[in-house]
Structures are given as C-alpha cells and as structure tokens.
C-alpha cells in the first residue's frame, strides 16, 4: 500500500466525515434558526438539486447529432414517465434505458 495515498485518503475522508456529520448534528443541538438563515437553508436543497442536475447534464451537451438526439429522447422519457407516474425511480430508469437505446439505435 502506497503510504502517501493512504494519508491523503484518510485526511480527505476525515474531512468528508466532518463536513457531512458535524453540521447535521449541530443543526439539532443549535436553537432552531429563524429569519434569514432559515430561509437560506430551506432554499439550499432545491438549489443543490438544480445545480447537480445542470452540472451532470453539461458534459452531455454536444453538437454531435446522435448524442444530442439521445439526450433529448432520454430527457423526454424522464419527463413523460415522471408526469404519468410521479415515480422518481421509474422516471430515472426509463430515461436511462431510452438514452441507451437511442445511442444504440442511432449508431
């Protein structure tokens, strides 16, 4: 085992644990925030999900017609299945399958 790798992994892992665990615990022990901080935290969730969606779709945006068509079809499948069933799991799986089939069919 590479010692440098182990040290970096342990340091980054310990920081990750602290970033994820400590604010979660402190959110309970601290008095309930009101006002601006409460609004900020309430908006963090939707902001984070929107950000992560945009960040994950950005690399897939391309001028290659086949990839763009697959992206449109995959996204359409997520929208269609979600609005029909309201199921996150179903919409995700449908989008992924349609995207893969589109790449395969258009190749």
């Amino acid at each position, binding site marked *: 085992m590479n010692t440098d790798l182990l040290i970096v992994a342990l340091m980054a892992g310990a920081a990750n644990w602290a970033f994820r665990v400590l604010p979660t*615990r402190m959110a309970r022990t601290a008095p309930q925030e009101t006002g601006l901080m409460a609004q900020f935290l309430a908006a963090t969730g939707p902001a984070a999900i929107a950000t992560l969606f*945009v960040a994950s779709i950005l690399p897939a945006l391309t001028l290659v017609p086949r990839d763009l068509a697959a992206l449109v079809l995959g996204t359409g499948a997520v929208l269609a299945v979600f609005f029909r069933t*309201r199921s996150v799991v179903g919409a995700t799986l449908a989008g992924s399958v349609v995207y893969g089939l589109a790449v395969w069919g258009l190749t």
Partner: protein
Amino acid sequence: MTDRQPTFLQGLSASVPIVMGYLPISFSFGVAATQAGFSAVEAFALSLFIYAGASQFLALALLGSGAPLLVSAFTLIAMNLRHVLYGPALMKQAGAAASTRYAWVWAFGLTDEVFGQALGAMARGQRFSERYMFGLGLGAYAAWLGGTAAGAYAGGGALAGYPAISASLGFMLPALFLALLLSILTRRQLPVIAVAGAVTVAVTLAVSGTAGILAGMIAGAIAGVARR
C-alpha cells in the same frame, strides 16, 4: 404527510436508482485507478475512506503526478466543502422532532445523490427517520465499494465493447437529478432553481466544474432569501 416512519428497507429500496448510477461510475473509477498504476486494494481504500466521486478521480491525477501530499489532501478537501450545507438543509426539512442520534454513522453517507433522494422523499410528504437514512446510505455505499472493486478487478476497457450499455449507465445520474428536480418543483422554488442553474453554467464555463457547483448552490440559496 404520512404518520408512519419510513423503514430501513424502504431506504434500501429508494437507493436503487442511486445504486444503478453509482455502479458504472465507481466501476470506471476502479478501472482508471488500475490504469494509473494503483493496486486494487489502493483503489478500494480511496473509495472506502473518501467516498466522493469527483474528488477520487482528482486524487488519481494528483497522486499519479506526484503532487505534494498536503496540496493533494487540501485540494480534495476543498472540493467537498459543499457537503457542509447538506446536513442542515436536510434537518431543516425533517423538522424539529427529527433525531440525529446516529448521524455520526449515517451522515457520512450524505453524498449529493443520497441528499437529493432523501430531500425529494420528504418534499413528497414522507417523514424523516434515521433507519431510512441508514438503508438509503448503505445501498449507495455498498454499490460504490462493489463497483470500485469490480472495476479494479476487471481492468481497462471492460465496457468498451458495449457502448449502448455504457451510455445508458452514464445517463443514470443526470436522469436521477432531473426526476428529483421535478419531484420538488413548485412555482415558489422556480427563482431558486433558475438562479442556481444559470450560475452553475456561467461559473463552470468561466472557472471550473467544482467552482460551478459551489457557486450555483450558494447563489440559488441566496435567491431563496432574496425572494421575500
């Protein structure tokens, strides 16, 4: 809102789309690590301890290029700073009565996707429970570790002959985030979502993907404060 607390098994079942998204990414990570000259055990150790996708790929580049140890560690730490917002945002949605007794274990599993899935479930009326968080987090973590081990074992080019499967698995996470976004979408959240998306694009193009994510989240949350 339902009165029953969601169970461990419900959490495990809610992790299925995350598992399907994590397997190909962690598999790719295992492959990339072995291609970069690291052993399967070293690849597994990175996934076990760090458990954060983008920073693990960066770790390979930093360690492989011989970057100083402290520079590597602090770069990776800075990349994951956004996670400090997840716990408080989740507990805000969970309400004052929610327990965090075992958060020192389950909250380590609060990745982008686990956070999004848990928040989306509560936005759809589900109650918060630590058992659910254990199930959700364990499914995702097991997939991450299993995918890394399989990728490190298989070595380079394992999915090269199956471009459609590779593409399908690669679209799993964007599809999951879109579905989660739809599940929390309300007229009230539109300004937050629009600002977060626009700032993410602008900062990603101008600076980097990591900076784009952090800036998008903060700008969206500030838009949430400013809308009143």
